[in-house]
C-alpha cells in the first residue's frame, strides 16, 4: 500500500486556499518535516500539480510574504510582511498520550481567538483562521494588514501578553488610598487583563464564593462586594484589605493561555515555515484542516482522508483510544479499520499494512 498514492489522490481535489501564494516560500519534507525549502509556486494549480506529482510527506509555507520567495539566502528574498501565527501545542508522556488532551485544548483556542485576538487586539474575526495542526495542536493564523508589518520583537510582545509573562495582579491596585482605606481596582467592563480579572472574580463569587472567603457564603455581603467591584471599588467588604489582596491571587491564576507556551518561536520568527492548511501531516495522515467550528471539530471525524477500509497488523501494543474510537490492540493483532485510522496507526509506526 503506497501512502504517497493516498496523499496524492487527496491533493487532486484538496481545498487549497493560500492568499498571495506567489509571494510565499515553500518547504517540503519526507524524512523530516523540512528537507528542502526556498521553493515557490506561481499559483494554486501549479502547487497542486507539484503535490500530486512529487507528493511530499510534509509541506509548509512561509508565514512571510516575499518579493522573491525563491531567492537564497534569505536576505535576498526581500521580506514584505507576514501572517501572525500562534502555535498551540501540547506534550504528554507516551506516543498516544497527547490525543486525549486535544479535546480539552479547544477551550484555549477559543479563549485565544475570542478574548485575546478579537477583544484585546481588536482584530476582526474574518482575519483569523483556526487550523488543526494535523497532530498535537492548533495553529491560529492572523491576517490583519495592520499587524502583518510587525517585526519579531513586537510579535514576541504579543505572545508574552497572551502567555501572561510578567503579569502581576497587584499592579491592578495602584490607587490604594490610606486615608479612607479604600481599595480601587479593575472594573469588569475594562479591556485586557484588568477586565478579565474583574469578570473572573465576579464569576467565582457567584459560582464558588467560599473559594475566596467564607463570608461570601451569605447573599448580602457577597452582593455588596460584587456591586462594589462593578464600580472598581474593592473595599465593600469586612475583610481586611491586605488579606483580601492575598486571597485574590487565586483569581490571577489561569488568566492567560498556557498552551501557547511551548512554541513562542513560531510567532516570533519572521521566516518561519508553517504547515500548509489542508495539507496532510506525514506522521499521522490527518489533514491539517481549516476549522470553521472549533466546538464541533473532531480530528478523526473531520480531518481524516476518506477511503475504503484497510487491514493492518500491529507491531506493538496500542492502548484503547477514545479519539480513534478503537479498543486496545496487542502486538501481532490484525484489524480492519477505515482508511484514515489504518493510516494513522501505520504512520505512527504502530502497525504495518497487512
Amino acid at each position, binding site marked *: 500500500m503506497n501512502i504517497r498514492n493516498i496523499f496524492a489522490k487527496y491533493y487532486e481535489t484538496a481545498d487549497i486556499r493560500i492568499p498571495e501564494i506567489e509571494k510565499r516560500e515553500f518547504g517540503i519534507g519526507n524524512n523530516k518535516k523540512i528537507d528542502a525549502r526556498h521553493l515557490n509556486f506561481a499559483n494554486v494549480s501549479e502547487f497542486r500539480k507539484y503535490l500530486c506529482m512529487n507528493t511530499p510527506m510534509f509541506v509548509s509555507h512561509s508565514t512571510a510574504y516575499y518579493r522573491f520567495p525563491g531567492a537564497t539566502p534569505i536576505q535576498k528574498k526581500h521580506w514584505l510582511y507576514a501572517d501572525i501565527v500562534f502555535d498551540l501545542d501540547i506534550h504528554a508522556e507516551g506516543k498516544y498520550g497527547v490525543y486525549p488532551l486535544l479535546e480539552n485544548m479547544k477551550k484555549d483556542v477559543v479563549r485565544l481567538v475570542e478574548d485575546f485576538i478579537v477583544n484585546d487586539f481588536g482584530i476582526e474575526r474574518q482575519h483569523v483562521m483556526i487550523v488543526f495542526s494535523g497532530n498535537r495542536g492548533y495553529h491560529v493564523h492572523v491576517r490583519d494588514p495592520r*499587524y502583518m508589518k510587525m517585526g519579531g*520583537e513586537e510579535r*514576541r*510582545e504579543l505572545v*508574552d*501578553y497572551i502567555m501572561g509573562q510578567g503579569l502581576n495582579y497587584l499592579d491592578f491596585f495602584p490607587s490604594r488610598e490610606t486615608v479612607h482605606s479604600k481599595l480601587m481596582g479593575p472594573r469588569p467592563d475594562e479591556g485586557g487583563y*484588568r477586565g478579565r480579572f474583574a469578570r473572573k472574580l465576579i464569576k467565582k463569587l457567584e459560582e464558588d464564593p467560599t473559594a475566596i472567603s467564607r463570608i461570601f457564603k451569605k447573599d448580602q455581603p457577597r452582593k455588596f462586594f460584587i456591586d462594589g467591584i462593578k464600580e472598581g471599588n474593592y473595599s465593600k467588604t469586612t475583610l481586611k484589605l491586605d488579606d483580601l489582596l492575598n486571597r485574590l491571587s487565586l483569581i490571577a491564576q489561569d488568566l492567560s493561555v498556557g498552551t501557547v507556551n*511551548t512554541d513562542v518561536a513560531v510567532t516570533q520568527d519572521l521566516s518561519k515555515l508553517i504547515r500548509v492548511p489542508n495539507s496532510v501531516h506525514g506522521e499521522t495522515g490527518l489533514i491539517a484542516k481549516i476549522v470553521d467550528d472549533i466546538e464541533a471539530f473532531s480530528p478523526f471525524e473531520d480531518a481524516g482522508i476518506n477511503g475504503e477500509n484497510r487491514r493492518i497488523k500491529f507491531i506493538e501494543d496500542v492502548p484503547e483510544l477514545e479519539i480513534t474510537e478503537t479498543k486496545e490492540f496487542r502486538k501481532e493483532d490484525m484489524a480492519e479499520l477505515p482508511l484514515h485510522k489504518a493510516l494513522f496507526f501505520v504512520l505512527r509506526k504502530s502497525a504495518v499494512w497487512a
Partner: protein
Amino acid sequence: MDNFALRYPFTDDAKQVLEGAELNSRIIEMGFQRIKNALEGKAAGKIVYSENEIIEEIASYAAARMILGTLGNQFITGRFAVNESKIARAHLNKENQAAVNRIALHFGIITNENLLDIPTYLKYCPKSTPYRLINRRIVSGKVEISENEKLRLIEEGIRKHMEDIPRPNDPPEEIKKAGERLLLELPKHQTRITVKEGDHPPCIMKLFESVKKHQNLPHTARWYLATYLIGIGMEEDAIVEIYSGLPDFNEKITRYQISHAKKKGYRVPSCSTIMSYGLCCAVCRIGNPLKWHTISNIRKEGIR
C-alpha cells in the same frame, strides 16, 4: 519664519525649506560638526537668528545624514540618533498640542482620547517594564497612553527614523572625506567581543549582538547583562569595555553602576524575570541563565 523646520529637521516642512538649497563645503563642515557633537555628547542645539542661518542649520542636518549614510557606521549613526532625538524631545516638551500632534502624525502616532492602536504602540514603545503590553490598559485593539508617554513614543520614533539612513548612490567626494575624518574622532578602542556560539545563553548572545551593532539597549537589558557578566566573574574593566559600544555610553556612569551592582551583590535574574522583561528569545528551560554553564553541549546545541 516659523522655526518648526529648524526644531524638527526630519520633517517634510524641513525638506520644503531646503528646496533649491545647495550643498557646499560650509554646510558639509556644519554637518560634520553636528555628528561630532553627538559623539561628544553635546546636546545643545545652536542659537540661530537669520533666515539664512536657519536654512544652513537645517541643511547641516541633511548633510550629516548624507555623511552617516555614506559611512555606514552603526556606532556613529546610533550616537547621532540618540543625540538628535533627545534635542528634538527637549523642543517637544515645550510645544503646544497641535505641534506635538503634527510631529506625531509623521510617525503615524494618532491618538484618540489617549488611545493608540497596538501595532503603532509596539513599534515605538521603549522596551521597559511599564511599557510592556501586559501592564497597560487595553481597549479593543488600543492602548491607553498619557501625554508624557506619547512624547516618549515620538522620541523613539525620531530615534528610529534617524537610525534608518539610506546609502546615497553617488555621494560627493567631500562627504566621503568628512566620513573618514569622523572615524578618527571615534573612541580609541572599539568594543571587541569575541565569543563563539554556545558560550553564553541565547538571550545574552543576542544582547552581545546588539552591542556589536551599537544598538541602543533598554535599561532592563543593560541591567541583566551587567548582573550576568558580574555573575560569570568578568573583570570590571572588561565589562565597561563591552558597554562602551552602546550609543549613549558614558564611562563614568557605567563604571559607577557596575561597581555599585557588584558591591550590592545583585543576583542574576531568573529566566522568568528575563521573560517578563521581554528579553527571552529561546526555550532553554534552565531556570537561571547562569545554569547555562552547567548543561551539556548536546543540550546547548538543541536550544536555539
